[in-house]
């Protein structure tokens, strides 16, 4: 099965020795690169075959959907900024699979994958990207501002770090109402250098808010690598400064993501404590559609090396090797994912543009209280 990678990925032997940063008292995150290219896929969450299949389906829908986004962008059907999530799908799928429908999700602008994984309609998302009236934000938000109240998907936010305090506000409301929901907030590793991140972590811990802050560390803030932007690349140690539990996991391993989320949601619901999680991943595409896949800031070799740990490929191989699904069944999942993307495309194409009157709606609401 091709996952969209340009070169057929190779798996290294599982028997090669792994570097163990933790044994030296360091967070393995900082030295993760070597480890992860060799790490086998884990499945310690006791997931059954049916769930594994569902996880694969979720990731493939995101991948096939976004491949069509790139195509639509080239055709001018999608405009503006468009940031693809390809390569990071194990995080969205793993995290969402551990949430309840009444939990809340808020994220930054690389939001297509998370919206899909959360259950926002692919049709409504594609219509939004096409700037159509059936879009999940009525065509007023676009790629960076996907919102869906039905699934408690609180957006798609375009200012790096600006949504992090908003997540704490949602968690504050949960506490205020004495509920046991959680609010999950996604952002990139570059956002840990912005003030809003620090202000929020302080208050979330100080006030025991049920928030889970997820750093998707894809190693580049646009074109600036973490080593060029961040004094301590071990970003999760920042949790300590705010008396918060911090964890670092392999974000290409959907089971590692789930396992970590199980602990974090338990902590939020039972102990009412926030968690900071670093999920180590890699972006297979450019920062946005105007950025070449390699760009000037990373090498083709680095990209290809990381594509060997394509999260979809890892899960696919695990299922295949376990003999849980036949090649035919695996192809069927992929074909279904492509069909979802095609259906979304067709729907978005047919959806009308927003009426001109919509220009002046949704600026203010009529007050009812």
């Amino acid at each position: 099965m091709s996952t969209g990678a340009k070169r057929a990925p190779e798996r290294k032997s599982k028997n090669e020795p792994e570097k163990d940063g933790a044994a030296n008292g360091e967070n393995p995150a900082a030295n993760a690169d070597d480890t992860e290219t060799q790490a086998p896929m884990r499945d310690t969450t006791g997931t059954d075959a049916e769930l594994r299949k569902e996880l694969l389906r979720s990731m493939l829908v995101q991948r096939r959907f976004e491949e069509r986004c790139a195509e639509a962008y080239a055709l001018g059907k999608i405009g503006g900024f468009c940031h693809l999530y390809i390569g990071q799908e194990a995080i969205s799928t793993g995290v969402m699979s551990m949430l309840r429908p009444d939990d809340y999700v808020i994220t930054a602008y690389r939001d297509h994958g998370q919206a899909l994984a959360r259950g926002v309609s692919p049709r409504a998302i594609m219509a939004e990207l096409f700037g159509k009236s059936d879009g999940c934000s009525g065509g007023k938000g676009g790629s960076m501002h996907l919102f869906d109240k039905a699934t408690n998907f609180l957006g798609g936010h375009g200012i790096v770090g600006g949504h992090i305090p908003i997540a704490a506000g949602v968690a504050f409301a949960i506490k205020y109402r004495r509920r046991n929901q959680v609010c999950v907030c996604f952002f990139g590793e570059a956002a840990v250098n912005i003030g809003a991140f620090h202000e929020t972590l302080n208050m979330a811990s100080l006030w025991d808010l049920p928030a889970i802050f997820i750093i998707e560390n894809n190693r580049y803030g646009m074109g600036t690598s973490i080593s060029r932007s961040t004094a301590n690349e071990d970003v999760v140690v920042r949790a300590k400064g705010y008396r918060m539990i911090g964890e670092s996991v392999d974000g290409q391993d959907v089971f590692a993501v789930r396992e970590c989320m199980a602990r974090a949601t338990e902590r939020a619901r039972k102990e009412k404590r926030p968690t900071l999680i670093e999920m180590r991943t890699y972006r297979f595409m450019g920062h946005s559609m105007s950025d070449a896949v390699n760009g000037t800031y990373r090498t083709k070799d680095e990209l290809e090396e990381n594509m060997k740990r394509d999260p979809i490929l890892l899960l696919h191989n695990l299922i295949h090797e376990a003999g849980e699904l036949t090649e035919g069944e695996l192809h069927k999942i992929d074909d279904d994912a492509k069909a979802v993307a095609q259906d979304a495309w067709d729907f978005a194409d047919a959806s009308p543009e927003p009426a001109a009157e919509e220009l002046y709606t949704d600026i203010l609401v009529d007050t009812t209280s």
Partner: protein
Amino acid sequence: MAVVTYRDALTQALREELQRDDRVFLMGEEVAQYNGAYKVSKGLLDEFGPMRIVDTPITELGFAGIGVGAAMVGLRPIVEFMTWNFALLAIDQVVNAAAKMLYMSGGQYKMPMVFRGPNGAALQLSAQHSQAWESWLAHIPGLKVLTPGTPADAKGLLKSAIRDDNPVVFLEGEMLYNTKGEVPDGEHIVPIGVAEVKREGSDCSIITHGKMVLVAMKVADELAKEGITLDVVDLRTIRPMDVEAIAASVQKTNRAVVVEEGWELCGVGAQVVDFIQRECFDDLDAPVIRVHQEDVPMPYAKNLERLAKPDAAKTLAAVKKVLYLD
């Protein structure tokens, strides 16, 4: 009708709305244990407890964002900035989050919240603490911007702001907290977006808002001694602006002076004058003149500060000029 201070009028509004709706809460620096930096929240912690009267760290961006998040999921936060000068640190939440959320979500997420605090210059607080922000904030679609100048308007507008389902910027006059005025007994609501003619007159209109309303009234008193009567229009709300009230007054007096606390360039007065020249062009007997802060950062020295601020003398001179009496 009881005579109360502007400060107490605000406290009454907060207390009444906190009692009325348990989704309403107040957060900000020193609002709880300290009873408020300007004592506007005095006694509220005792009455409503720490979950609803929330002391925050000094972290404007963070707690403004917490207000935005809480409003997104249905609470009705009142975010207090110790002064609006400090709100600059949180302006991303006001402008990029609160004001945009409804629109960019296609109408799914409304923002029933209030950002409030003292605005404008006090006395000798110098450059960083003496600024009037209404023209900046009124520029943004998605916000409502209120500038009460009297205790009655402070109470009535704050109650309306808290009940509004939109993000409301509520600019209190730092020098007004101790001023007194009559406030109607019982439930007192002032509608948003409605100006009030604070003084009827026929010779010249003064269009103003906030702290400068008192200055305009003082000038009206002075000129009345000379037989000149001023029509003082208090905008009360800057966004949405009650342009009908402006037109009605200018069409009556045929002359206008526009007074504001902020700077000249792109100020509120510029918008008012733009409206007057478009809608009242044939009514005017003289060019409209604006009174505003001098185009300098606020100095500390008493004499320089006095020179920098718009005041009664400058306003009076402007009125005489449009009446061709100078």
